[in-house]
């Protein structure tokens, strides 16, 4: 062996140093390994659940399944709003996705216009990650399958079967049911900082009007999800049906409406503008509530073009307005029933006679009647709708008493229908006038005696909507209860409170009977004698016509037929039937229709006939009488309905449903 170059003591010394330091290094290693083990224990034992959740969040992609919107049915189970399948093409942006390329590829599969392609590219780039954007709706089956075949090679592109709202009776229920429309920014803002993710789903629609809006929450249901295993690039590796969360269908809403009556009611309006309300006068159920002209709600679901909306909103006969609830009009002579009741309650003797010469001078004014009725009592005054009689009947009790009775019968009242849009109208009295003109000089706030005669014939400040007049008629017909209208029969199978569980009317039954008899005389031999006969054998209708001024007449002339549509009188007819055992009450308004007896009464008769013939007990009664059902009412100019004033512009308005 060669000589050691280092002395032994030195060897010992540095060997010692090495040993100590190697030991130190071993210690440091052990410390390091211990640190790693502790960190592992923290991550894998203490935080395991948290990371398992995160791993699942990576691994599984829950795709939202929008819930089927609840159906809306009529009282007999006829679908008024349902859903139909809709094949959609969606593109959701993913990390590292080339949006332009993807959209270009999609455009090879389905027809897309160049403008649309540009807009889609922008929309998809702007949308949040994984937020699907609707590229195409209502694809054909061929397009749908073509996209489905190619989808696996196009990450982010999916074709699915969504649902779209459909209204089988496009127009008849448009005002009551409303429609659904795309979620807009305001909906999102209203939903708060954490909106329900379903709102962002491209196929999702929210209720915009009527029942769709008022019951939007129960109709929505709860979204479900499909669980899919995805890789880091977002591609679906496999579906996991066991992990799916089923969507909860929206609640079914059943209305009290009857589709047949509703459809017929819209039909009889033709091109006229107006509203009709029919109520069951024992339960308060609203069987028909229609506003004419209407619009096709299905167009609103798709999204209305600006021009379409403009045409609808600018059309003089206001198809977008729900005239049954939101339109208020002077009730005209139909209000005489209230005046009569108020006078009777005030001790007025119905046998008291007045003589009508066609004019009634009062104070420094002269009030007119449409003709000279001669001498008559209250019964005949209702039958022939004599204004002169009712000027004086009104004066006998004053505005406050009339208003009290009118309000008790529902005029100027709001009802809990479940949907929005009612306008209260006005039933004036002294207190109302003082409050209403409180910012005017004191002499404008007092009720002048000269204002009472106008009120007596349902003019002046009196303003009501067709629903209120129908409620009034139903309460008159019921003869006992202050019925409430009910529009929504059940929500998700839960019955809504009936409109019959209400207190009695605060008037005497004899007085009610008196008014009802007078109303029967109206259709038997009075103002609506020619147009109020139902032709249903023993089933008779009692009613009251109304012809309400829509503006202040020029001095003298009370004829308005020759005037432009917007200046003509409003035609009213309120009725109930059968007269001897009242079941149904209705009110019909023909806006600017002229005479109540000729414009409103024939339409009311048609609606009432349809209503009565849907009642099996009524049909049995007619059959038992052996008189049969006449095809159309006898001795009536059956063409009256069709002689509706033509619309001012014969060009059809898009979306307007006559």
């Amino acid at each position: 062996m060669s000589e050691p170059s280092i002395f032994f003591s030195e060897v010992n010394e540095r060997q010692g140093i090495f040993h100590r330091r190697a030991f130190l290094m071993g210690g440091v290693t052990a410390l390091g390994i211990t640190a790693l083990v502790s960190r592992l224990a923290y991550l894998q034992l203490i935080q395991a659940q948290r990371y398992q959740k995160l791993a699942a969040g990576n691994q599984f992609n829950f795709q939202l399944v929008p819930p089927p919107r609840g159906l809306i049915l009529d009282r007999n189970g006829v679908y008024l709003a349902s859903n139909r399948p809709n094949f959609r093409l969606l593109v959701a942006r993913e990390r590292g996705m080339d949006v332009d390329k993807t959209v270009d590829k999609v455009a090879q599969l389905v027809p897309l216009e160049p403008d649309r392609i540009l807009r889609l590219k922008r929309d998809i780039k702007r949308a949040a990650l994984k937020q699907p954007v609707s590229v195409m709706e209502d694809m054909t089956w061929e397009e749908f399958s073509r996209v489905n075949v190619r989808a696996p090679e196009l990450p982010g592109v999916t074709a699915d079967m969504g649902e779209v709202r459909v209204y089988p009776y496009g127009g008849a229920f448009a005002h009551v049911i409303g429609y659904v429309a795309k979620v807009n920014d305001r909906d999102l803002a209203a939903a708060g900082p954490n909106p329900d993710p379903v709102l962002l789903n491209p196929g999702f629609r929210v209720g915009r009007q009527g029942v769709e809006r008022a019951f939007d929450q129960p109709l929505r249901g709860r979204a479900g999800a499909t669980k899919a295993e995805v890789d880091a690039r977002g591609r679906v590796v496999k579906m996991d049906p066991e992990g799916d969360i089923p969507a909860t269908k929206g609640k079914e809403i059943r209305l009290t409406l009857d589709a047949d009556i509703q459809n017929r009611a819209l039909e009889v309006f033709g091109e006229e503008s107006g509203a009709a309300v029919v109520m069951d006068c024992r339960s308060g159920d609203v069987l028909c509530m229609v506003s004419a002209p209407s619009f096709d709600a299905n167009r609103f679901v798709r999204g209305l073009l600006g021009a379409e909306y403009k045409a609808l909103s600018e059309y003089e006969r206001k198809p977008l307005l729900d005239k049954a609830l939101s339109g208020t009009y002077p009730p005209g002579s139909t209000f005489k029933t209230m005046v009569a009741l108020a006078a009777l309650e005030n001790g007025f003797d119905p046998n008291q006679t007045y003589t009508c010469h066609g004019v009634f001078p009062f104070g420094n004014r002269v009030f007119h009647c449409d003709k000279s009725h001669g001498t008559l009592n209250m019964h005949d005054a209702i039958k022939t709708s004599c204004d002169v009689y009712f000027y004086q009947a009104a004066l006998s009790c004053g505005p406050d008493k009339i208003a009290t009775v009118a309000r008790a019968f529902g005029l100027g009242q709001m009802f809990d229908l479940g949907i929005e849009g009612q306008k209260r109208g006005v039933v004036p009295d002294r207190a109302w006038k003082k409050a209403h003109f409180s910012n005017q000089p004191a002499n404008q706030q007092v009720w002048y005696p000269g204002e009472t005669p106008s009120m007596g014939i349902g003019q002046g400040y009196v303003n009501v909507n067709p629903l209120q007049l129908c409620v009034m008629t139903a309460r008159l017909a019921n003869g006992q209860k202050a019925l409430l209208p009910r529009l929504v029969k059940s929500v998700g199978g839960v019955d809504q409170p009936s409109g019959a569980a209400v207190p009695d009317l605060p008037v005497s039954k004899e007085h009610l009977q008196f008014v009802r008899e007078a109303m029967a005389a109206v259709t038997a031999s009075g103002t609506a004698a020619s147009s109020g006969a139902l032709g249903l054998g023993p089933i008779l209708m009692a009613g009251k016509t109304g012809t309400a001024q829509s503006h202040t007449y020029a001095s003298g002339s009370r004829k308005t037929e020759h005037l432009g549509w917007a200046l003509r009188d409003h035609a009213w007819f309120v009725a109930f039937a059968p007269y001897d055992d009242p079941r149904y009450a209705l009110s019909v308004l023909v806006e600017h229709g002229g005479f109540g007896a000729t414009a409103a009464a024939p339409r009311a008769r048609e609606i009432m006939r349809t209503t009565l013939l849907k009642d099996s007990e009524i049909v049995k009664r007619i059959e038992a009488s052996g008189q049969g059902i006449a095809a159309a009412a006898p001795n009536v100019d059956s063409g009256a309905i069709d002689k509706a004033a033509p619309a001012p512009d014969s060009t059809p308005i898009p979306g307007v449903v006559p």
Partner: protein
Amino acid sequence: MTASALTRPGERDRPISKFQEIDWTFCLALCLIAGAGGIMLFSIAGGSWTPWAAPHLFRFALCFVLMIVLAMISLRIWFVAAYPVYAIGLALLVAVELKGDISLGAQRWLDLGPVRIQPSEIMKIGLVLALARFYHGLPPEMAKLSLRLLIPATLIALPALLVAHQPDLGTAVLIVLTGGSLMILGGLSLRLVGMGLLGVLLAIWPFVTFVLHDYQLKRILTFLNPESDPSGSGYHILQSKIALGSGGLMGRGFGLGSQSQLNFLPEKQTDFIFATLAEEFGFLGCISVLFLYAAIILMALRIASISHSHFGRLSAAGMTATFALYVMINGAMVMGLAPVVGVPMPLLSYGGTVMLTVMIGFGLVMSVRVHRYDEVTSGRGALL
């Protein structure tokens, strides 16, 4: 043949005696880790031997044979080869610097016809050998604190700077730490070490400001708070922690780790293979593997300690330090305790270069064990 055979000159030079001196327990631990790596690579490939598991095991087998062969080589030859290996490594690093093959945005490889070599790997061995040889001839009082220590400091700094400039921060840190460990083992004043650490802390600010590349700084910053940028730089660490954490105690089962199987985990077969292991085999799997690593490191340190030559001691301990640093840095990185620096888990990760380096290192360690009674001198006579 017992250890006493080694004490008899002549007897201990027989290959059969040397072969019997190889530490087979140590070899078993290496095989277990490489095997675990093979299993994980098989799982990550979706239950397939290709593309990773089979090459990994095959390479390990070759490297294992190489290690045994290297174990037979006399320490004297290692000793003589020390400076030349270092010199070649340094020359290649300079060559890479001058004309490197750009791979993954960094110049790390040198393409020499059929072979692609990574000079930084040669340098890991060369540096340990060179430092061990230097300290072998250095009187202990000088090893503590003297101007002569500028030589090892330069030996460390040259390759570290070159590697850092590639830029391969992970390897540069590894080189500095390995070299530093050797200087401490060699007898460097601990007071100086303490002051040095303080100096390093003070130097961090200019280093961060002037030297680090943007992406390097970003990696370092995100490791502190990976959730702040889950889809950007924090992605690696966050996904790795998710993989680890979701493994729980028992793991999600072989082949069932969603993070690795569905590619959420980046570099799952190389740098982040430990996360895959953690996901599929859980805490128990992890501590078993960490136990094996700890056993290997401690056994190697023990081998270093029983060597009669200072060169043997330091070279074995130096290779052990390299290995231990790999394990610590990778472990800390995968667990979110250190920034992502691109240091693989030795023997477990897929990749031939690191495996070759580590196994050559263990060949040296094993040679130190086999030749533990040999004296090595810097004298000329020892060479032949």
